[in-house]
C-alpha cells in the first residue's frame, strides 16, 4: 500500500488537508457572516445607507444583509441618537439577540451622546449595553465605517469562541 489508505483515492498536488486551531477556524467563519440589525434612529442613517449600497458595499465584508429581527442577527448597529425614552427598546433588542453578538456604536451620538447633553439624550449606548466598536464622526465617512467593520472582523478573528460541547 502507498500513502493513501482510502480505497479509490488518487493523491494529487492540491491541498489535501489543513491544520488550524478551533478558535481561529470558527473566528474566520464568523467574521465573514455578520448579519447586522440596523437600530437606526437619526441622521446617521443616510451614511449607513451610503455605506451599505453599491459604491462602498459592505457586502464585500460579509456584512450586508440586514436582518430586521434581532433574533436572526449578530451585529447590532446602533445608528444615531438614542433617547432615554428609547433606551428600554434598545435594551430589549439587545437582549433578544442570540449569542454570539457584537455591538457597533455608529456615530458620536451612539458612542457618547455627541453634542446632546440634556434631559432627552442617552450619553452613549455603553451606559446600558456593552459596545465592541465605536465609530466616531457626525456622521462617520463610509471609509471610516468600513475601517471599523474590518477592525471588528479582526477582533472576532482573534476572539475565543466557546462552543459548549466536549467534542468541539
Amino acid at each position, binding site marked *: 500500500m502507498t500513502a493513501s489508505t482510502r480505497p479509490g483515492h488518487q493523491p494529487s498536488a492540491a491541498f489535501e488537508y489543513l491544520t488550524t486551531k478551533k478558535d481561529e477556524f470558527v473566528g474566520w467563519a464568523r467574521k465573514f457572516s455578520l448579519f447586522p440589525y440596523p437600530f437606526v434612529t437619526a441622521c446617521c442613517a443616510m451614511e449607513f445607507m451610503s455605506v451599505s449600497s453599491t459604491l462602498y458595499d459592505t457586502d464585500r465584508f460579509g456584512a450586508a444583509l440586514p436582518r430586521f429581527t434581532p433574533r436572526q442577527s449578530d451585529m447590532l448597529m446602533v445608528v444615531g441618537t438614542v433617547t*432615554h425614552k428609547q*433606551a428600554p427598546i434598545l435594551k430589549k433588542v439587545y437582549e433578544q439577540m442570540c449569542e454570539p453578538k457584537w455591538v457597533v456604536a455608529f456615530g458620536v451620538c451612539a458612542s457618547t451622546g455627541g453634542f446632546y*447633553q440634556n*434631559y432627552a439624550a*442617552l450619553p452613549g449606548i455603553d*451606559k*446600558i*449595553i456593552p459596545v465592541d466598536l465605536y465609530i466616531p464622526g457626525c456622521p462617520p465617512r463610509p471609509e471610516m465605517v468600513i475601517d471599523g467593520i474590518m477592525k471588528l472582523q479582526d477582533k472576532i478573528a482573534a476572539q475565543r469562541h466557546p462552543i459548549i460541547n466536549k467534542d468541539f
Partner: protein
Amino acid sequence: MTDALFEQVRTSLAGMVTDATVAHGILALTAEPAQVAPIARALKENLGFDMFLDVTAVDWPDRDLRFDVVYHFYSTRDHVRVRVRTRVPASDPTVDTLVPLYGSARYMERECHEMYGIVFRGNDDLRPLLLYEGFVGHPLRKDYPKQKEQPLVPYRK
C-alpha cells in the same frame, strides 16, 4: 391687502386685546389669559383664521408673570398669520384650552404642558407626549438643570 385685514382684526377685537402691533409681517396681539379663548373663537369664526399653527411658552424667570403663552394662527384664505401672546404667573400657569375650536390643539397643548408646565383648563388628556411617564419637572423651564438626566434603564457598572 394684508394691512386692511390686520386693520379689520384690530377693530373687531378692539375690546379684547391690550396691545396690537405688526412685527415681521405678523400681527402680534397681547391679551389677558381669560381673553385668549374668545379671541381664538373670533379669529376662527369671523376672520378666517382656520388653522392653528402652534402653542408654546416663553420662560422669563425674573418676571412676576413668569410665562408668556404664545399662540400662532394662520389663514389659509388670506395667507397671513396672527400671534396671540398672554402672560401667566408661575403660581397658577393656567389658560383655557382651545381643543373645542381646533382639534390639533390637543397635541400641541400636551407638548407645552410637559415642557413648560402650562395647564390647559378643559384639556382632559395632558399625558406626556415626547417625554415619558415618571419624568419629574419641566425640561424647557430655565430652572431645569441643563444636564439633569432621568434614565429609564439603570446604567451599567
